[in-house]
């Protein structure tokens, strides 16, 4: 950049932001559809052709949503399910991935491959068998009925992802710690995991959102409306003859807000992870 002329660097900037803004526009259209519709009355939502801007914006939906729906309960449940899935998945994935990265043993390849096999069946395909398992363990209608299958389907990615990152961490660091008398567990938690932060952030984000976004397990294994999460709550608003689209969309928009806050927060961590990576060099 230092060698580039001033004009060229300016041009580059224009191009950079041009591309970014164009991409952003594309990515935002669906979100904008949702968002703008929450300010329209029901009749305008179904006007043909659609009005691109609410003709008479109203915040009414955001006032009514709290009393008309259980949106806070659903968000709370979404967090319980997602955090539960993250904890369970990481507890299982970190040791397994670390073991594969640090040891060469018979069956490692098989293990890594068969973990991947789990992904090769659509959850919806295995749902009947999963249903048997869930009822067999007496988990039907508990949070675990959703957390456990979600953990099973996120585990493969986490194992692979962490395995890949663990491998990039020089063994020398651990050797010196071992010589200093640190235990395996101490090495893992004090030395390896901090260095794995970017990967962990990615892992957590992926797992959290997997559980956050999926409807299938909640739909099949939870019938107790007190345990509904956001997607399940939204879809419980679909009536046979009447569907309150305005409320549905409002709940969907509100459901994104906690994630936006989290994203902004996590993004910081990714940057921190980046500097950690630089120190590593």
């Amino acid at each position, binding site marked *: 950049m230092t060698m580039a002329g001033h004009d060229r660097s300016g041009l580059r900037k224009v191009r950079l932001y041009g591309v970014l803004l164009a991409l952003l526009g594309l990515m935002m259209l669906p979100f904008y559809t949702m968002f703008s519709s929450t300010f329209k*009355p*029901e*009749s305008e939502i*179904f*006007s*043909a052709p659609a009005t691109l801007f609410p003709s008479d914006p109203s915040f009414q939906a955001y006032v009514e949503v709290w009393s*008309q*729906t259980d949106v806070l309960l659903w968000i709370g449940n979404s967090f319980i399910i997602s955090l539960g899935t993250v904890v369970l998945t990481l507890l299982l994935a970190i040791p397994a991935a670390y073991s594969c990265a640090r040891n060469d043993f018979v069956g490692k390849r098989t293990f890594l491959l068969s973990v991947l096999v789990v992904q090769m069946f659509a959850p919806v395909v295995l*749902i*009947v068998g999963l*249903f*048997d*398992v869930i*009822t*067999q363990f007496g988990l039907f209608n508990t949070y675990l009925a959703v957390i456990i299958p979600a953990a099973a389907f996120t585990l493969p990615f986490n194992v692979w992802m962490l395995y890949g990152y663990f491998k990039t961490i020089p063994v020398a660091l651990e050797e010196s710690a071992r010589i200093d008398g640190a235990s395996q567990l101490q090495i893992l938690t004090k030395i390896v995991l901090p260095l794995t932060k970017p990967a962990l952030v990615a892992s957590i984000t992926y797992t959290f959102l997997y559980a956050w976004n999926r*409807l*299938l397990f909640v*739909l*099949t294994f939870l*019938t107790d*409306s007190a345990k509904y999460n956001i997607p*399940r709550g939204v*879809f*419980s*608003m*679909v*009536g*046979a*003859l*009447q*569907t*309150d689209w305005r*409320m549905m969309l409002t709940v969907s928009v509100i459901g994104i807000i906690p994630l936006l806050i989290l994203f902004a927060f996590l993004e910081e961590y990714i940057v921190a992870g980046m500097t950690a990576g630089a120190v590593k060099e």
Partner: protein
Amino acid sequence: MQPDNNPESSDDSIDRRQLLQALGAGGAIAIAGCSGDGGSGSDGGDGDSGSGSDGGDGGTQSVQFLTMGVGDNIKQFFEENNAAFEEEHGVDVEFTSVTWDNARQTVNNRVDGGQAPDVSRWPARWIPQLVGKDALEPLDDMMDGEFGEQFYDGVAEGTMYNGSHYGVPWAASNKCLYYNKDVFETAGLDPENPSLDSWQDMVDAAKQIRDSDASVPALGLAGADAIETGSQYYHYHWSHGADLVDDEGMPVVNSSGAVDALSLYTDLHLEHDVTQSSPLSSTRQDIRQLFENGDLGMVIGHVYTGLNITSAQENDEVDFDYGIVQVPRGPEGRYSLFTIDTLAILSQSEHKDLARDLIRFYFDEERRFQYSKQKGFLPVVEAVGERSYFSDSKNWGPFVEAGQYARARPKLSNFSEFNDRMVQAIQEALAERKTPQKALNDAQSDLEDAME
């Protein structure tokens, strides 16, 4: 983890079938075709469990009454009447309401777990499934007697399966043809006494709208890959003398009447160009929305369309006027698709007499009137329909009148598969991938294979 104890009849397959039934019902995930049909769930959202009355544990008998989707508009009705029944009979009524998205699974769970309620609301189209488990009590003693005479014929018929009545009609929904008076006026058609008696009349009116200054499509046509596309089409099918299955339950979908019906259905779009654009994208819900916003000339819809427009008019959200006439007549008659919900008694019940008393109690004419009125459901009892509240109402009148044209879809245990295949045939014809004749012939042969 299930050791494979006995593959011939392993226990777990019961659980499994439950799940399949829930999934087969479409579940909430099938929002693409999200408007499940009929009287079975107009309450949408927040009808969470109602008042689970804390039944006394003393010596008093109790009767368990399960219903679905009790919202705020009807909660009080049940509370008061349950209390009255308790008083009258000196018993407890254990009343529960479940949301529609859980309804099917809840009842199945309770039946399979030996915890069936005594009386339950139950959509007629799900009757075959519970009868298959021997879980429903035949109610011929009631329906064949004096009690049964109060219902419209087509409605009473709707609770029949394998020659027996397995429930008492509780709620119903049917169809009429709506038209937009403003659009008719613009097109030079008579808005007050439109000539819409036959399909041909409807086509003529539609063409006149098409060629006029009216800026909206003349007719709503459903063609999306959704259950209700079948429901919309069957009006055409039946009125051309065609049937879906014969008396033995074998498919007969490609008769010459059927071909005429499907040709008419597709010609509306392909030949006459009187429909909204891309009917293959439109669900019944979509065209209903179009009409309710004044963006369509005609549509076949249920009573809610009128009620919705009326309330939108009151809120100044729309400003057009509409009229309702009967679904047009075909060469072989006129039919209005009826969907019926029943009150059923479950065979596990140990208080069947009391259960019958409860049903009789709720079919007191005044109670039926209050229920139909407060809930906004089409009356299933003739005497209620004849009350001026319904028969003189602009919105309700035509639908009450349509009671005489009632026809329910055949009760087949695999109706949804059957219906899917019919929808595919409709789509193939609409997309001009096949002629109506070929589309129906192929459907017929596939359905024959599937029935084996």
